[in-house]
Structure formats: C-alpha cells, structure tokens
C-alpha cells in the first residue's frame, strides 16, 4: 500500500498543530483534544477512558427549530391559561391535547402532548420516554438583565447554522467542526484500519457531531450502504474495471490534498461496503415501519444495532436529520404533520428494539436548532432559544419531564423571556449530554473534559437531571 492514507500520521500531525495553536493564542482551540490526550497516555497508566458497553446512542436532529412549546404543553390551571394567552392564535385547544398521566412537576404543573403524538404519549405512559424541559446551548448561567447588557451568549444565538453546530458540539463558545460523538470514536477506534467500519454511522451524510479529531463517520442511506455496481454484476468486463478502479484508488497524488482526500474517501467507502452489507442485510425486523424516510432510516438503524457484533462495533452512534421544522409560516398545519411522522417513527423504532431484544442498549434523543418565539408572527413563529426535547429508551426513567419547565408569560412576568417569548434555557445541553455520555460508558470525570462549560453551572440552579436514576 502507498502512503495516500496514513491515518495515524495525519492524526498526530494535527494534534501537534492544535497544541501549537493553543499555546500561541491562549485559547482552547480544540474542545476535544483534552480528552484525546489522556487516552494516548492511557496505555501508560491512563486517565480518562470510555468503557465499551455494547450500547448505542441515536440522535434525531429536528432541523430548523421545532416549536416545542406546542409539542409539550402545560394543561393544568393556571398554566394552560398562561400558555393560551401568550400563544394567541397558535395555541392548541385544550380539548385536543393528549394529557400525560401520573406526572406533575414540583410547581404542580401537569402536562399534555400535541394531538398528533399518541405513540409518544403511550411510550411516556409505559415509562420508556421522557422530556427535558427548556434545554438549549449555553456558555454560562445568564439572567435577563445580563442578556440585555452584554452577557456571554452562545455564538450566533438564534441563527440556524450556529445553533445546529452547538447541538452537535456542546461548545456554544466556539465554532468547532468536531462533536462529542466524534470524540467517542477517537477514544474507541483510535487506529481504525480502513476496512473497519466507523462506529459513528450517519443517515444524513456529513455532520459535525460524529467528527472527531481523526475520526469521521460512515454514511449509509435508509437502504443501507452503497456498493459498486461493477462489483455486484460479475462478468469479465466488470472484473477488469474493478481492478483498474482499485488501482486508481491507490495512486499517489502526493502534493495535492484535494485529490488525496477524494481518493482516500472513495477508497474507504469501497473497502467498507461489503462488510456492512453482509452484516446487516439479513437482520430480520418483524415490526412494521411506516414508509416515511424517518421510519425507514430508523428501521435501518435497528438492523445496524443488531449487527453491532458482526460489524466489530463495541459501541455505536447514529445521526439522523429530519429537515423542515423552520415554521415561520403555516406552523399549525405543518408541525402537525411532522410531529405525527416523528411520533409514529419513535413508536415503531422502540417496538422494533423491544422485538429484537435491544431495548436496554439503546437511548434515542432529539435535538433541534432552538425553541421558537412563544409569540406568533401571524401564522408561524420565529427563532428562539430554549426548547423541549425527547429522550427515549428503557434504560431511562420514563414518564417524566426533567429540568424546569418555564413559565410561559411574557415580559416582566417572566424572568426568562428576553423578548417575543424567546426563553433563556433552564438546563444547559451539557447536563443532558454528560448523563448520556456516562451511560454510554464515559468515566464521570471524563465528562468535564468532553463538556468543559459544564463547570460553569452549579448544582443548585442547574441540578443533575438523573435521567438514569440516582
């Protein structure tokens, strides 16, 4: 083999580079580097590490900014009335909402779900699904006064690209191209051979969350991995073509980083496809899935988790992107349709995991750019900040709303409202992510390295969620 793709060398030289940058600028350039370093030291007596536990994390990005205060709605008095007054023409009729039973928060607030989410309500009632209230990217705690007088805000607050990025990195003070799933792979597959399939699997192509310092992700579609046609139809011509193709992939384009990257990525894809297909194609799934892309993708995820051992994966992450939640317009109609697609897919996925005996090993959670303005722009809502998110799995304490669900009044009556019902989050993303990471096998001490801003949040104002019990 030539030196076109010398993974280890690339990784080292990059680490050296970031160390230099860090020293020169006095800034923590790489949020994940501190986690990687101890890992390399680990062989010699090690610090932080992650213990493979045969688990999978599944992230569903609701891309565009889900109006989640119409997804999880307070139904008790006076909470519903406050909701209804603020949301005006966008408020959902109380009679249509699906009440969530056997739970109220410490302020006596009872909850309900959007009418199009019966499957989600059922999962909640069966203890397999919970919500995290008013969560979002933050750097430090911040008050409304500080917000208006130059307090530290997430970079690019209220804009899609940056908030999507923060949901993937949990580093709202930086613009990184590496995320926390990526650091798992840096730790678990540091010297992955090119024919071994990355543990981070994307159904949405390139993303930041599953990018580490050296690690990247494996992209599949709802049909599975993509293989070469020349390889699948066996004849003399195709055999010759395949050989030439493989020779081409090993040519040395020494000086040109673009050509080298093009070839190495193509080569890796080619090397991994067959292993992926063979491991996953025969995995039986009895549960019926809807025909929506989201359901079809989750079906493929279930098969891939089942095949983890055959794929050589001790752990896995999955990245799914459901686009179209930027409901500036036609909010009520469009969100109804999309929540229904989401809810059905979640129900089907959890049922399949149960059927396949995988339920305890998988936690699924949603993210979204931001919550939206509580106030209406006539027919829709605009970009906000804090929002409500879903966590699903048998391993979690289900049937709960974690965190502090905010008051939904406006202006002076709500210390969280910074204008138009844009709410300061009451739980930073890192609280959720750290608990998921520890469940995934990260040593608790490692969470501080992975999520450095967590140290800015004290436990009185921002208590642990205890998603997985005490």
């Amino acid at each position, binding site marked *: 083999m030539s030196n076109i793709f010398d993974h280890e060398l690339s990784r080292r030289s990059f680490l050296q580079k970031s160390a230099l940058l860090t020293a020169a600028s006095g800034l923590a350039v790489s949020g994940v580097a501190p986690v990687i370093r101890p890992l390399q030291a680990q062989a010699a007596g090690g610090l932080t590490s992650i213990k493979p536990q045969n688990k999978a994390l599944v992230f569903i990005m609701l891309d565009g900014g889900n109006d989640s205060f119409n997804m999880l709605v307070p139904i008790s008095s006076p909470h519903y009335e406050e909701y209804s007054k603020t949301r005006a023409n966008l408020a959902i009729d109380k009679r249509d909402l699906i009440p969530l039973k056997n739970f109220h928060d410490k302020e006596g607030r009872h909850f309900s779900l959007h009418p199009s989410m019966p499957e989600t309500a059922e999962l909640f009632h069966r203890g397999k699904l919970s919500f995290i209230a008013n969560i979002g990217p933050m750097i430090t705690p911040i008050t409304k006064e500080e917000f208006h007088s130059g307090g530290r805000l997430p970079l690019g607050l209220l804009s899609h690209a940056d908030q999507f990025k923060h949901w993937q990195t949990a580093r709202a003070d930086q613009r990184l191209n590496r995320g926390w799933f990526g650091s798992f792979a840096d730790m678990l597959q540091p010297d992955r051979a090119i024919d071994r399939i990355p543990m981070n699997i994307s159904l949405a192509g390139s993303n930041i969350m599953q990018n580490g310092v050296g690690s990247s992700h494996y992209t599949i*579609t709802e049909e599975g991995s993509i293989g070469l046609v020349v390889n699948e139809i066996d004849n003399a011509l195709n055999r010759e073509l395949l050989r030439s193709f493989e020779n081409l992939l090993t040519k040395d384009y020494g000086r040109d980083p673009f050509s080298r990257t093009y070839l190495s990525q193509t080569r890796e894809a080619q090397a991994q496809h067959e292993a992926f297909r063979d491991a996953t194609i025969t995995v039986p799934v009895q549960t019926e899935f809807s025909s929506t892309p989201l359901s079809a993708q989750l079906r493929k995820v279930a098969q891939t988790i089942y095949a983890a051992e055959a794929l050589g994966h001790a752990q896995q992450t999955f990245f799914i992107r459901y686009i179209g939640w930027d409901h500036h317009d036609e909010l009520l109609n469009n969100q109804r349709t999309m929540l229904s697609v989401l809810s059905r897919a979640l129900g089907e996925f959890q049922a399949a995991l149960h059927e396949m005996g995988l339920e305890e090993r998988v936690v699924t959670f949603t993210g979204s750019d931001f919550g939206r303005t509580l106030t209406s722009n006539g027919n829709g809502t605009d970009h906000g900040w804090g929002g409500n998110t879903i966590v699903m799995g048998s391993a979690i304490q289900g049937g709960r709303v974690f965190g502090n669900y905010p008051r939904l009044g406006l202006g002076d009556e709500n210390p969280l409202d910074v204008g138009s019902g844009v709410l300061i989050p009451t739980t930073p993303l890192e609280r959720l992510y750290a608990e998921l990471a520890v469940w995934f096998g990260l040593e608790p001490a490692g969470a501080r390295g992975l999520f450095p801003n967590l140290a800015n949040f004290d436990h009185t104002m921002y208590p642990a969620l205890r998603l997985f019990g005490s």
Partner: protein
Amino acid sequence: MGREIRNNKSDVVRFLSQAVLGYDGQLVENVARRGIHNWLEKEMSQKVINRSTYRQLTKQIWDYFRTELVAEHGEAAINGDGNNPALPYKWYFHMAWWHRTLTSRNHLIRQRVALALSELLVISDKSSLELDAVGMADYYDLLYHHAFGNYADLLTDVSLHPCMGVYLSHMNNRKADPGRNIHPDENYAREIMQLFTIGLFELNGDGSEMLDGEGKPIPTYDNRDIKELARVFTGLQPPFYQYEWSTGFWDPSYNNYPVDFEDGVEKAFKTVPFVNMTNPMKGNEQYHDRGAKNLLGGKLVLPGGQNVQDEVKSVVAQLVAHSNTAPFVAKHLIRQLVCSNPAPAYVEAVANAFGSVGDLGAAVYEVLSYPLDNSNVNNVVQSSGSEVSGPTRPAGKMKSPLLRATQVLRMFKASNDSGKAWVTGEYMDESLRQHPLSSPTVFNFYSPDYTPHGPIEEAGLVAPEFELHTSATAIDYVNLMYYWFFADRLPAVSTIISGDPDYINVPELDPDVLITYPKDRLTFDFMPELKMAGDPRKHDALIDHMSLLMTGKTGLPFKDDIKASFKKYADNPLWVVQTIAFMISISPEFVIQEV
C-alpha cells in the same frame, strides 16, 4: 502583472471547466482559435433580450403535457373535480433547465453564473414551491438575466419575487399587532443579511475577518437589528389569485382577483398553488410598518413614510453598499467558479470590481480572468503549505456533483432523436444529492467553511463540495458514471404522461418505462473517439485525446491501468472508448478542478 497568453488546449479546458456548465471538443477548438480572453469578452458581451427564457420554455413544456393529458384522459384531466390536479409541478422546470443546459450554443458563461447565483440566493423545490415550476423558472430568469448586471437590482427583484416570499415566508407578513402578541416574521430579515449580503462578521476588503482587541471576529448585527429590519418586509402580498384549473371550489372568475389580507379567504389559499407566482409581490400599505427604521448602528436608515417596495429597494441598496457585501459575494463567486481557497489579493480584486453597487459583470470577468492574468498561482490560491512545482497546478476545488454531471453530458454531446432533452432529474437528485433549485435548506447543499478530515484540514484549507462526498455519494457517483457509460442509461428524459394509474396528472418519471422510448433516450456521441479506437495502435493517443478533453491533461498516472483494463477486448472499439471515459470521469484529474 503582464497578461499571459495561454491558449493551448490544456489551458482552454481548464478555463472552460471554470467558466461554463459544459463544453465539447468543438468549443475547445473555437476558444483555442479565438483566444481565451477574446472569447470571454465576446461571450460576456452578449445581451439577453428575452427576460423570460426559462419561464417560457417551462411553460411550453407544461402546456405540452397538458395537451397530452387532455388527449389521453379528456378535459377532466385538467379541469373539474375528482382528480389529482395537473399543476405545474417541479419537473417541468427541471426539464427546461436540462434542455437548455445540454443544448445551448451561446450564453454559456451566463448559464454557469446563474447556477452559481442559485446557490447563493437559494430557493428550493424541496418546499411547497414544488407545485410551481413556472414560478421557479421565472425566479431562475432573474438570476440568468441579471447574471452580468447589477447585484442590487437582482436582489431587489429577488426580495419581491413571490417564490422568495413563499420560501422565506415574508409574503403575507403583516406589521406588528402588539395587542395580540403578534410580531412580524423575521425570517427574510435575517437571511438577507446573513446569507445574501453582509454575512455574520465584519470583513476586510480581501474577505478576511476583522478582529477585535481580543482577536475575536466582530458580529455584523444582532437580534435587535433583525427585529428592526423585519418591520420593512411587511405588507407584501401575492400579485393576485390564480389557480390553474376550475373545480367545485374554484371558479375561473376568481383568477386575477386581487389578494387582500382581510378578504375573507383563508391564508392557506394565499400562496402556491392558488396565486400568481411570476409577477412581483404587491404592497398593501395598511399592513406595512411605515415607521422609520434604524439598524446596524446607524449604517442602515429608512426615514419612514415610504411604501414597502421603495423601502425594500432602499434596504437592498444600503446592504449591497455595505463594505462586507463585495468581499462576501466575491468569495462566493470565486468558490463556485474557480477555487475554494482564493488568495486575499484575488478576493480583493473581485470585490473591487463588484464595488458598492454590485457590478456582477465586472466581478465575474475578474473571477475568470484573474487566474489567467496571474502567472504566479500563489496569488490566486491560498497556499496549502506544500510547495507547488512542476507541471501540476494546484487544486482549485472539487467540482460539485452536478457540475461533473453537466460536464460529462456535454463533453460527449448527449442528445436524443426527439430533440427534447427534457431530463426529469429524479434519479440525478437522488444519487448526486444535488439538483438546481433543490437544496435541502436555504443553507445550500454545502457550507462555505466545510473541511474534511485529513490533508485538506491539515493544510488549513476549506473544501465546501466535500460536504457532499460521503461513503454513500462517493460510490453513487462511480455507479452513475458506470450506468451512463456502460449500461447506456443516461439521465431519463420524459415526453410522455404517467402510466401509473395513481398519478395520472404528471409526466412519466419511471426510468424503466422511459428507457423503452428510443426517440427520447439520451445517447453519447463517440464518433471521433470510435474512429481512433478501431485501430489498436492508436489507443495510446486515444487516451491522451480523451483525457485532454476531459481534464486538460495528457499522460495520466493511471494510463497503464486503463490500457490493462481493456486489453482483453481491445478489438471492441466501443468498450475501449467507454472504459477510457469511465476511468477518467471518476479520476481526481476530472473531479478536482485546477486553477
């Protein structure tokens, strides 16, 4: 810097891959004979007289299908109750776009620039706009018509176009109603600044970010600015009601009826497909916030008392004149056409040509001629850290999947007997993850700062198009080329109505059905190549001939592999030609464009 005269075929091919959507051997000859500069100037001096180029063709194609529908299913197919509507679905624009892209003999640079602009001023048929190909074609005409015009004029027209009004939701947007907790929609106000003009951070003239005392970039605006600007885009309404056929709920007399906020018609009927989508949006001053506006720290000021159209025009002029816009748009154009990592001096030269009114013609001319006039490539491309020497010029960019497709199709003169190159685009979109006016979101198909792991990242460079290059698409592309060259399965063309009883009112889209219509099937024209391939002694020269056409180079490093792969069937000229074309089409020499 003296003007370098470089008119050999190699230079011409490199230039054409930057300047046009596709070229063939004949065009290479023409440009080489005339000289690159002369051809560039002549090509750019051609005026577009018809302002509805894409719309007219889209409408013609749609009318053709309507006629076919009536012939097959009777008048009920396009009028009356109880059937799927025969709307101007997105495919009719796809067909028009591909037809022009594959058959046009002139305005080639303009076509390339229109596509580049469509990846800046993004609207997408992955939205309700899929119901109005004619509207989208009319929007594309703006990009095409203004491609060498004035960016301020273009952006004004874009801001008032109903397709943008639907896509970024400022159509039917009304001024604040504090009593009901209703504020104006902020969507367009945000994106016109973030994506279409000034961007997120203050820029220097050369496109680099200005830094504050702590070395941090300086934001150009904050949310208060967005709220202030959102007040401008209020009171805009669709031109008038217009539905394409009559049903129990829609009487033809409703057509051309003015739209009003309070006309008793539900808002769901004040958008596609129930309104006209080709005339500019109309203002309704009762719902427009006529107060004074002041944002960007006093850099953008409106006195108030103006109607919405005048305010939009003034806002656009002030945003385009902002010192950020020239380098912002300059960088986009360079990245689309020439290279992902332009040197600062290159950005500055294009930004200066763009100026404060946004002279797109001057900017495009600079984008394309700067690399020709600067013999030292280090002035063109930001250094990658590795020295560049020898015959290889530095990589400019990865060609987008769409660009690879258009270039391959034109290179070998894909055509059909019917003369209708009406490609539906269905399978292309699936396998390339890219199609004109079909981006997943307003953030285009890839982000300008994307960098894949490995040597590109280590060199501190960006490579936006690599965001589309994944383990799935890398192989999809190779397979697509295999289907085109060996399986005789070029992109499917449809001139017939659907045979699927569940979807009668659309064109036939199933490639397995379309392939059975020989008159419509696209095929490559390998005539000159086949002549050479018939003589095995000329195979070496044939590889050089084809690689010169496809990549601007001869003596490819994998030439021996190509020869080895057709060795066993060297007596089959077609297979020889197909093998050469296939291998080069998937090679870095073709996929990565040099400066």
